[in-house]
């Protein structure tokens, strides 16, 4: 019976999605806001004695307990900082546009964790470079491990 | 259409099989002396049907080889049966067994020749690259026993001129199908005097 329900839901699922996206919002050209320029870039990056790289699994955006511990060490400084920049990256495997989105998901994951810890979301800037800016250009397991990262910088 | 026919015939076979089994059961009740006259039904061998199906369904080399092995086995089995039952069976029955054996021999022979012809024509046919189009051209070929192609004509077109042309080009490059040389004349007349080549764009 339960599996029957599941199947029923599965059948229904595309329709639910279909309904949900029915209301496609049109944004008129007049309401465009020009994208904010990165004002904080001009201010000096804060130097800290902390590892500023958070690593991820392949095709995953979730934080490991180790990473959470590392981010927690930032909280103190982050509260004082004017701005926080989170840069998401991926390894070379997989497609480029998908990796661009995945890098963003990774940075957002870190951002959400910071927000939970009490950092104001308006201070946090998120950007993804996908697989375009690898640290190590080699095609090896160790290189990929280094490249799947979010870089934290405080200003 | 042919598929429907095949399945229809198969279903008839199946029903006949059931009937045959039923009659066999009844025949057990007949006296010993009469049982000799009743044809041993276990001999009406179903491998014949199996073989037909396998031939239709599988085209790959390995299965074809297996088929050949199977056919050989079958021939052996039948000849063994022949030897064993020589004294028991009626002359009429023996006649039929010999026919059966011949039938299998012909099948085997024809299978081997078909395989060789396929291999040869595959090696010279330069198939145009038509991605994702599932089409076929059927060409009828008339042969002389020497293997000489007497005539070929298109039975059904694929609808794609380039594809049809490619099949004709392959045939224009050969004037003999030497693969049929040296086979039993009767087998040749029954199978290769006139046959159809089906060129398929997809496997």
């Amino acid at each position, binding site marked *: 019976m339960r599996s029957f329900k599941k199947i029923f839901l599965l059948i229904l699922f595309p329709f639910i999605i279909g309904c949900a996206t029915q209301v496609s919002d049109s944004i008129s050209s007049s*309401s465009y806001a020009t994208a904010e320029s990165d004002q904080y870039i001009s201010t000096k990056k804060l130097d800290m004695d902390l590892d500023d790289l958070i690593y991820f699994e392949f095709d995953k955006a979730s934080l490991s307990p180790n990473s959470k511990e590392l981010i927690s060490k930032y909280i103190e400084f982050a509260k004082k900082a004017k701005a926080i920049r989170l840069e998401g990256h991926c390894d070379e495997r997989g*497609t480029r546009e998908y990796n*661009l989105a995945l890098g963003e998901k990774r940075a957002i994951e870190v951002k959400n964790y910071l927000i939970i810890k009490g950092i104001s979301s308006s201070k946090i800037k998120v950007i993804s470079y996908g697989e375009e800016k690898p640290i190590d250009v080699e095609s090896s397991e160790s290189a990929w491990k280094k490249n799947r990262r979010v870089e934290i910088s405080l200003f | 259409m042919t598929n429907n026919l095949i399945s229809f015939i198969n279903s008839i076979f199946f029903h*006949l099989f059931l009937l045959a089994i039923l009659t066999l059961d009844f025949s057990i009740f007949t006296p010993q002396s009469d049982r000799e006259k009743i044809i041993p039904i276990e001999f009406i061998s179903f491998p014949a049907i199996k073989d037909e199906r396998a031939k239709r369904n599988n085209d790959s080399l390995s299965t074809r080889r297996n088929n050949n092995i199977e056919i050989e086995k079958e021939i052996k089995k039948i000849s063994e049966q022949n030897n064993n039952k020589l004294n028991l069976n009626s002359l009429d029955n023996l006649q039929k067994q010999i026919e059966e054996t011949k039938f299998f021999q012909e099948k085997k022979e024809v299978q081997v020749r078909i395989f060789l012809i396929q291999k040869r024509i595959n090696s010279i046919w330069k198939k145009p690259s038509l*991605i994702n189009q599932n089409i076929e051209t059927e060409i009828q070929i008339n042969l002389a026993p020497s293997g000489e192609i007497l005539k070929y004509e298109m039975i059904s077109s694929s609808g794609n001129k380039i594809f049809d042309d490619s099949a004709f080009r392959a045939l224009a490059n050969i004037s003999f199908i030497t693969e049929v040389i040296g086979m039993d004349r009767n087998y040749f007349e029954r199978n290769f005097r006139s046959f159809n080549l089906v060129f398929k764009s997809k496997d």
Partner: protein
Amino acid sequence: MKEILDRLIWSLNQRTKILKTLFFCLIFLSVSIDAKLKIEISQGSKDLPKIAIVPFENTKTIKISLSHLIEENLTLFGEFKATPKNEMLSFPSSEDNFFYRDWKILKVDYAVVGSFKEISGSNIFIEYFVFNVPLKKLILKGDISGDINEFDQISKVISNRTYKAITGLDGIFNTKLAYVLNPDKEVYKICVSDIDGSNEQVLFESTAPLMSPSWSSDIKKLAYVSFEKGYPEIYMQDLFSGNRESIKTLGLSNSAPVWSPDNKKLAFVMSMSGNPDIYIYNLKNNKISRHTTHYGIDTEPAWSPNSKKLLFTSNRSGSPQIYELTISSNRIKRITLDGDYNARASYFPNGKDIVLVHGNNGIFHIGIKNIRGRFINTISKTTLDESPTISPNGNIIIYATKNNSQGYLAGLTLDGKSKFRLPVKFGSVREPSWSPLTN
């Protein structure tokens, strides 16, 4: 009593006999239905069709060899094997002095012959013929006139027409390729070249990453993603004037622009607060509409040939898979089921098959799948293959791959007979995008 039993047995015996005869009759009947032997041929030869391009006869001494250019074009993707000049038995120049037997001996499948003469000044007139040798048929008779300085262009036109006459497919020798060139770590270029890799032109150069070049269907503009302002933004650049304009949106991250085949819309991906979704930008009225709302990643849109559907990659099921979106109803259908990574799909010109990046256990190949079928047929052999782009005639795929962390472009024909590498560039090359046909 015994009499009755005997009778019964007798009748049963009769019945068995009848049934048996019937049985054999049917066996032979079934054989006789199939009496006409049918032999199926489906594989075909691995050999390429042989083509002979006879040097074109000319009235005056014109140094450039037109036949050589045509030969280079037709053999570019490994679809034909050219017959060397020194093997040719005769050098005909028209229908009148062409003898099939000279070419049948060489087992040539097609022969191209022609001649040209100067009309006035640099203007030339070319007449050419294409023969199907085994069938002894003239399949194309054409002429063209043009400037002697545009030999390259003339050879491409003749190649295209010859290709069409032989294969029935559109010739693609005057199409172009856009790609991203990364000569060293800090320099990114959007480049356009002829399909054979020659005449490379840099359209835009930046120290920030550049991504996702996409052609407009009139081949006048190119859309791409630039990080020049610190975040991904979509630019549309006019190829001739060099004018660039960006699409202004509310989102801070815009990517993966793709021009619709009817040239009226641009599908792209916009992320508002970390949720990348598929949007369509209407180029006529500058309106933007949203077409997916799932919280997972939705990206890599690709238009169907009729501009009514989009393929896209989504990880809504947990791993990246291909989905099809019907734009008018926003109905979404999952297309791929096998494998743990299926991404960046695009339609073949027939709209029924798709090419995609298929990953399994961290190995990525180019795959082909029927939109309704189940199985993905992998066609490339290297392990980091991505960004497949299909030729406008649907017969060739070019993709990006890597060797020793150096990106290069490779290609293959769909019949699997030919694989090739595009000329090596100085630097890493990626994200090839094949232009539509120029008319």
